[in-house]
């Protein structure tokens, strides 16, 4: 039996995540409702506009079901807006957040679009070449809780973290051909044994 990984498809670059996961041989599903969330073993929250994703999740009753599944151990990867949505708070800004990742994020931390950038990152626990990372109006993490493991930093700020079943990146692995970050979430998803 193969795992089924959902991608939150309210807004953003969910198609890029889906093709990345499919290239790893995973069954995927677009998630826009609480019912669709029930049918997946793991979840990716894509890049996009975090305020828009938060508002739509709130209006369509997804906040509580998402909190419950993720706090209950569902492997979850959030990239950029996904990281913001997973976090507990945002510096100087009030918006809908899940609060399942014990971290305070700073939005647009590197500046506006003219400051968006690409860089090679050495990531703890990812052997081989550095990961080529694309940062677009990206957040960084201002403060992490004790259970959060920092896997990479830029300018001294965490940009890739792990907390139990949650992975979060400030950058967009889905915009490159490097599947290693997605492979991490696939590896974290247990395959249910068929008896």
């Amino acid at each position, binding site marked *: 039996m193969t795992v089924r990984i959902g991608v939150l*498809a*309210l*807004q*953003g*670059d*969910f*198609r*890029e995540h889906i093709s990345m996961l499919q290239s790893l041989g995973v069954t995927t599903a677009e998630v*826009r409702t609480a019912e669709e969330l029930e049918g997946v073993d793991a979840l990716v929250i894509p*890049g*996009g*506009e975090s*305020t*828009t994703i938060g*508002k*739509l999740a709130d*209006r369509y009753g997804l906040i509580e079901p998402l909190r419950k599944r993720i706090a209950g151990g569902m492997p979850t990867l959030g990239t*950029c*807006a996904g990281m913001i949505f997973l976090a507990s708070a945002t510096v100087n*800004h009030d918006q809908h957040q899940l609060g399942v990742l014990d971290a305070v994020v700073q*939005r*647009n931390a590197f500046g*506006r*679009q*003219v*400051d*968006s*950038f*690409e*860089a*090679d*990152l*050495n*990531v703890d626990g990812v052997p081989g070449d*550095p990961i080529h990372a*694309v*940062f*677009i*109006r990206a957040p960084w993490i201002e403060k992490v809780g004790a259970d959060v493991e920092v896997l*990479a*930093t*830029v*300018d*001294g700020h965490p*940009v*890739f973290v792990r907390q139990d079943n949650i992975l979060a990146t400030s950058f*967009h692995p889905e*915009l490159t051909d490097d599947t290693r970050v997605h492979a991490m979430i696939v590896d974290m998803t247990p395959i249910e044994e068929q008896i």
Partner: protein
Amino acid sequence: MDSTSTPIETGTDLVKRGLAEMLKGGVIMDVTDVEQARIAEEAGAVAVMSLERVPADIRAEGGVARMADPERVSAIVDAVSIPVMAKVRLGHFVEAQVLETLGVDYIDESEVLTPADDQFHIDKWKFTVPFVCGAKNLGEALRRIGEGAAMIRTKGEPGTGNVVEAVRHMRQMTSQIKWLSTLDDQELMDAAKVLGAPYALVKEVAGSGRLPVVNFAAGGIATPADAALMMQLGCDGVFVGSGIFKSGDPAVRAKAIVEATTYFKDAEKIAKVSRGLGEAMVGINIDTLPDSEMMQLRGD
């Protein structure tokens, strides 16, 4: 300790096109001041487009339409947390230089404003800030991408509240992309000649079956159903210009259009959000417009 192993690079194709990727499935709303920008953000817009007057007013009032006052653009940049786009006149590279200094996140080289150059578009490769441009067909889209545009939108017919031209331009682009992907390599140079488009881009589209950049719909979208129609026709997201702030209840309509864009395949949800929205903007029949008033004919 820092994890970067190489110097960082800004203004690359990937970061320019990448921001448009993040806007997909969303609604970008025309706003003229801070109050409208806040309403748009609250409704769930993925970005706002700052301009002097919305297209319907430019049509009604006439005169030369230019880049918005920098003071107004800066106030909008400071007021909202979502990306801010702003319009410049076709070919007016100094307006673009000015907007880049204001921290605008995307520049729309737009036929809605009065053209500043009737022959040449801006050389968009020279800028760090990305550009979006309008197109009626595939050739025009590829010419703009060849000049450095990182995002395309259909032109439609702005300020009319009439979706027919946006539909026509979207269908035209889709069918031309399908046609290209049926050609063999030997036929591609002739196709480039027919389209008036750079050969390398023609070859790329023939191979991938899609535009190399994100393509939004624009020009005449006025209702949630219009937005969902464009999404079902295959666009990546929508721009709404006059459709929101020339309607009876902008906040409610803006929210409904956002929701219809996400749930564009769910007719029951579209029906629900379309109820009791108040007056839509008054529309214009395109047949009654003389060529001189057709904004889509500016630039090619």
